[in-house]
C-alpha cells in the first residue's frame, strides 16, 4: 500500500500523538538526572521534585511579603492585558475589515494604508509607546493591538471579499440595502473566520505581551520569568512557560468549540 493511503488505527493515532510529548519529557529527565548526578546543586535542569516544590511555593503558598499567591496574581494580570488587547483588536478588525471588504470607497482609502501599517515591526514601536503612553497598562495593551489588529483587519477584509458575488447580488434582489446586507449576509459569514483568525493571533499576542512585560512591569507571567532569570531559577521558568503554553492551547481549543457551537453551519460547509 502507498504511504499516502496508509492510515493509523485509533490506538496507533493516540500513541503517535503522545510520542513526541513523551520523548521530550524522557529526554529532559535523562538530561536532568545526568547533570544532577555531576552536581547536586545544578540549576540549569532541575529535577521534577524541584519543579513540584517551586510550583507549590508559587501557586499554593501566599507570598510572605505581599500576601499574594504569585502564580495566580501573575496569571490574572497577564490575562487581563491579553484579553483587553485582543478584545480591542477584534472590535477594530471587525468594523474596519468589514468596511474594507464591502465598500469600494473605504477599500481604496484604507486597504493600502492597513497593508503598510501591518508591515511595521510592532516591537520596534515599543520604545515609542513607553515614551508616549508611560510604562502603565495602556502601552502594553496598545502594543498587542498594534501587533495583532492590522493582520486581523486584512484577514477579515479578504474573507468578506471572498464571499461569492452571487450572494451579494442575490441579497440585493431580495431588497437589501448596504447596511442590511452587511448585517445579515456578510457579518454572520465573517464571524466564524473571526474566531479562527483570533486563534491564529493568540501566539503573536502572547509574544507582544511577554515582551512588554519583560521590559516594564511589576506583575504578569512575562515579568516573573524575566525577574527570576537573574537567579537562574529554571525551576520557576519552566513551569511558567508550560503554564503559558497550556493557557494558549486551552484558549485555542475553546475558541474553536465556540465556533462550532455558535455557527454550526461553518462546520457543515467544510465537510461539503
Amino acid at each position: 500500500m502507498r504511504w499516502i493511503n496508509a492510515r493509523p488505527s485509533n490506538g496507533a493515532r493516540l500513541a503517535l500523538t503522545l510520542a513526541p510529548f513523551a520523548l521530550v519529557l524522557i529526554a529532559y529527565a535523562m538530561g536532568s538526572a545526568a547533570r544532577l548526578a555531576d552536581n547536586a546543586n545544578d540549576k540549569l535542569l532541575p529535577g521534577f521534585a524541584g519543579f513540584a516544590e517551586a510550583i507549590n511555593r508559587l501557586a499554593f503558598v501566599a507570598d510572605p511579603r505581599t500576601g499574594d499567591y504569585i502564580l495566580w496574581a501573575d496569571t490574572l494580570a497577564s490575562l487581563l492585558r491579553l484579553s483587553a488587547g485582543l478584545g480591542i483588536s477584534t472590535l477594530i478588525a471587525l468594523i474596519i475589515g468589514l468596511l474594507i471588504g464591502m465598500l469600494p470607497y473605504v477599500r481604496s482609502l484604507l486597504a493600502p494604508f492597513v497593508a503598510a501599517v501591518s508591515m511595521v515591526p510592532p516591537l520596534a514601536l515599543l520604545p515609542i509607546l513607553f515614551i508616549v503612553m508611560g510604562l502603565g497598562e495602556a502601552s502594553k495593551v496598545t502594543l498587542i493591538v498594534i501587533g495583532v489588529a492590522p493582520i486581523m483587519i486584512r484577514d477579515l477584509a479578504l474573507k468578506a471579499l471572498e464571499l461569492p458575488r452571487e450572494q451579494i447580488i442575490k441579497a440585493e434582489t431580495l431588497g437589501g440595502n448596504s447596511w442590511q446586507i452587511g448585517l445579515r449576509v456578510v457579518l454572520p459569514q465573517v464571524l466564524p473566520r473571526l474566531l479562527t483568525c483570533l486563534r491564529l493571533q493568540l501566539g503573536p499576542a502572547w509574544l507582544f505581551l511577554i515582551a512588554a512585560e519583560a521590559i516594564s512591569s511589576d506583575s504578569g507571567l512575562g515579568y516573573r520569568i524575566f525577574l527570576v532569570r537573574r537567579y537562574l531559577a529554571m525551576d520557576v521558568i519552566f513551569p511558567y512557560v508550560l503554564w503559558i503554553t497550556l493557557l494558549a492551547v486551552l484558549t485555542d481549543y475553546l475558541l474553536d468549540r465556540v465556533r462550532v457551537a455558535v455557527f454550526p453551519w461553518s462546520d457543515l460547509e467544510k465537510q461539503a
Partner: protein
Amino acid sequence: MSAISIKDVWKEYGDQIVLENVSIDIASRAFVALVGPSGCGKTTFLRMLLGQERPTRGTILLDGEPLPAEPGPDRGVVFQRYSVFPHLTVLGNVLLGKELRAARLSARLFGAARRQAVEEARSMIASVGLSGSEDKYPAQLSGGMQQRLALAQALVMRPKVLLLDEPFGALDPGIRAEIHVLMKRLWHDAPMTVVMVTHDMREAFTLATRVVAFERPRDRPEEKLRYGASITKDITIWPPRKAGEASLIRPDRDGPVPSQGH
C-alpha cells in the same frame, strides 16, 4: 405586467465587443430561453437585465421605465451556484427577503409580523417541495434541493421578472426533469416573466415560450475582438404556450401542472 423592451444594446469591455446591436421585445408573462455557444454573451445579457452590468449603448426598459442601475426586488435571480446563503436555514433563507423588506434597520422581524412571514415562507417552501427541511442548512441539501430553495427564496419576493442563469445545469437528468415540472408550475402560477440562460436545448424547448439564440456572426480569430455576438435566431414555440392556460394540442405537456401538496 412585466414587459421588457431592449433597444440597440451594445456591451463592450474596453476594446472587446461582447454584444452588438441587440434588440428584442419580451412580452409580459413570456418564458424566454437564451441559448448559444459558450462565451457568446448570454450571461452578460442576463446580467444587464439584472442590473449587475450596464449596457455600453442602448436602452433597456421594464414596463416602459428605464431599468434601475442596480439589482432590486423587482427582478429575482437564481444562479447555477451560490444562490442561497450557507449560514441560514431553509426557513431563514426564504424569510430573509421578507425581513430585509420589512425592517430597514434591524433586518429582522418579531412577534406577529414574524409569525405571518414564517407562515408565508412555509407555504412557499411547501410549494417547491421542501416541506420538512425547514431547519436544515443548505450544505445538508442536495444540489436539486438547493436550487428549489433558491427558487422559493426568489419567488417569495413576487418579482416581476425571474432571471435564471443556467439554474439546472449542474443537476443530473432525473432531478432536472423533476425540477422542470416545478419550474413550469411556478411560471404558470406566479405573475412573472422568466428569462433563462441554458446550454441544454431540450430544456429550452421544454420550458420556454420562445427560444432566442445568441451567436457571433463573425467568429474568425482576428475578428473576435471587434465583432460581438447578436441575436441570430428567435423561435416562438408552436403550439403556443401561454402562462396560466392549458395548451389546445398537448395539454398534458404544456398546460398548467396540477399542483401537489397545497
